[in-house]
């Protein structure tokens, strides 16, 4: 049992932050790595990135968006409860080195995934611009943490309720026009990452994205997480999750993510029904 030590709701309860006791994982985890979690005996195994770790306290922090049955079930748990299984750290850590100027652009819960990477890139001596976007002000997460982790952080919302009015990709383009950028890291929903790559492509700037493919084992034994990168099949869990975004077939990824939508809906309806009957 992996105990939940703290729980915080963000973005009007659509996003939840858990600090969880997992000493062995906390000791080993590096930015960009994820865990696979199973809530209980009948649960699914789902991948979640570690937004933070504390090796001394033996804790990992997960920030997840409530999108379906498993994440809704997770939200129903509180401090003192726990998760039955957590395996990790999985995936390749982000390659952190000093390259010069970096733009880290995050959308939605992608910001949670982006946060430790941003911090590590800055600590490595890079000048790091952070661009954090959401639909509206109330859905923005980790504004302060991202400000602290970067050299300069700009918030943006689609509706203009906070920060820049418009997409982060507009700001990205402005930076690219203005100065020499050596690396872009874009993490968020698939359409957003695809768009980021389309923006950086003409500038020929290396662009890393993190693929959120559906996974089972997370150790390269099933092939569930396969994605086409540079015309070749790659396993996101062991070859990634980060890849050169200019090589990724995002349309295929988007389709594969919808592979079980009917059954996911059925699971969710059953869960909500059970909850309301209690």
């Amino acid at each position, binding site marked *: 049992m992996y105990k939940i030590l703290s729980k915080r709701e963000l973005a009007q309860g659509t996003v939840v932050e858990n600090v969880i006791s997992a000493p*062995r*994982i906390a000791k*080993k985890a590096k930015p960009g790595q994820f865990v696979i979690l*199973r809530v209980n005996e*009948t*649960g*699914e*195994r789902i991948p979640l990135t570690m937004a933070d770790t504390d090796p001394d306290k033996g804790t990992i922090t997960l920030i997840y968006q409530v999108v379906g*049955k*498993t994440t809704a079930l997770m939200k129903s748990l509180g401090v003192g409860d726990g998760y*039955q*299984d*957590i*395996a*990790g*750290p*999985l995936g390749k850590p982000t390659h952190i080195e000093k390259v010069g100027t970096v733009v880290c652009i995050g959308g939605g819960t992608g910001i949670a995934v982006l946060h430790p990477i941003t911090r590590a890139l800055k600590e490595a001596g890079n000048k790091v611009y952070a661009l954090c976007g959401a639909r509206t002000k109330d859905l923005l997460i980790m504004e302060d943490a991202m400000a602290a982790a970067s050299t300069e952080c700009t918030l943006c919302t689609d509706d203009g309720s906070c920060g820049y009015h418009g997409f982060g990709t507009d700001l990205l383009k402005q930076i690219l026009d203005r100065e020499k950028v050596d690396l872009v890291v874009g993490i968020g929903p698939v359409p957003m990452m695809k768009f980021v790559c389309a923006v950086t492509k003409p500038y020929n700037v290396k662009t890393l994205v993190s693929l959120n493919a559906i996974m*089972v*084992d*997370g*150790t*390269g*034994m*099933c*092939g*569930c997480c*396969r*994605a*086409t990168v540079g015309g070749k*099949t790659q396993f996101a869990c*062991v070859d990634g999750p980060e890849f050169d975004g200019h090589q990724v077939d995002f349309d*295929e990824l988007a*389709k*594969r993510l*919808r*592979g*079980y939508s009917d*059954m*996911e809906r*059925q*699971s969710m309806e*059953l869960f909500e029904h059970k909850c309301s009957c209690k």
Partner: protein
Amino acid sequence: MAEVKEKVPRQKMPEQDPGVRKRNFKEVPLGYPAETAILEAGRCLQCKTPGCSKGCPVGIDIPGFIKEIASKNFEAGIAKLKEQNALPAVCGRVCPQESQCEGGCILGKKGESVAIGRLERFLADWERNEGKVKLPNIPAPTGKRVAVVGSGPSGLTVAGDLCLKGHDVTVFEAFHKPGGVLLYGIPEFRLPKDILFAEINYLERLGVKFEVNSVVGKVVSLEELFAEGYQAIYVAVGAGLPYFLGVPGENLIGVYSANEYLTRSNLMKAYLFPEYDTPLVRGKNVIVVGAGNVAMDSARTAMRMGADTVKIVYRRSREEMPARAEEIHHAEEEGIELFLLTNPVRFMGDADGRLTTVECQKMELGEPDASGRRRPVPIEGAFFTMPTDLAVISVGAGANPLLTSTTPALSLNKRGYIVAQAETGKTTMKGVWAGGDIVTGMATVIQAMGAGKQAAASMHAYLTMGW
């Protein structure tokens, strides 16, 4: 008048009716009742130099345990069996007996061999069902600590053997439950999981500790395990890297590796969705590519998940099918069709990226290849398509590099398998042994256990006497 001893035929095992069982996940063969087991045991000639034992990779005293059944000493029989085999309930069910023990039985030369596997299963089931499982005496602790990486049959064997020598054993398993392929690969209808859990529970009672959710190479390295105080390590991580065909359309929704398909249904219990959360595509028209045991398990699972048609698509002929005869027979009884000399060349889907159609090419057999089997050669222009909404690719597996790539001191062969000494399992890294599928490539449960037995003996010698 001299009494003519009536010749007893090989005893049949009762089975679930094919028409019924093809839609449920309950075990197919139902086991021998005691009278039948005694009758079957009576067929054994008690050979002085038994061919059967030679065929068994762990050299079980087969006439020895059969004799005890014939004289109704079941308790003595199971004790004899367990001297060599810690998982008889498993092996009695899944060993390819026809090519191992039963293949060497003298009676098989002229007629039908003794049903050794069924008798082995009988004793193990009897012991479990009668609550006769006894814990052996465990010697005083030696104070030596052993880490086993991987909880498949090979790792479990080492854990059991070394625990019985008084060593302190911890098994590290990447998944959330121990068992390896016995758990996530072989389906419930061939190996009920309760039996596996009983075996694992037995090991726990012996004192074996299990650390699940522990991906060694990621959460801890072999060097770190030594630093934590483990003095010897056994690596048995299996051959878990799925091969795909490399044809267009293979990433469509509805195309699975057998590993994924079986893991979802067995380990994650997707066949019980929505009671269990893990989803799985329920195909109406299913193809399974390949013809080994894994392919048979996938095909029979798809049938039980409600398919209308299930086809095994294989590029060679029936003669070359690697699956056990019994499995092919069971599959065909359940209505699974064989599409032989056929090779998929392309998968096609709809606008949502879901599999709808497979295109295949007809093959013919040419000259023998390196494996001695006649090589399948495509027939020019002989293409055809079939509607398909689920395809399971079951064309073999390779060595998963996750652990080995982070452990440079382990020498690998050119296919990525760990190099280990044949008799001992010693690797090129001091204090580390390896065995099972990660050394041999995918083999059998009992071979993986045999490798474990040898390694355990060598590890015990090391822990008491040195490398």
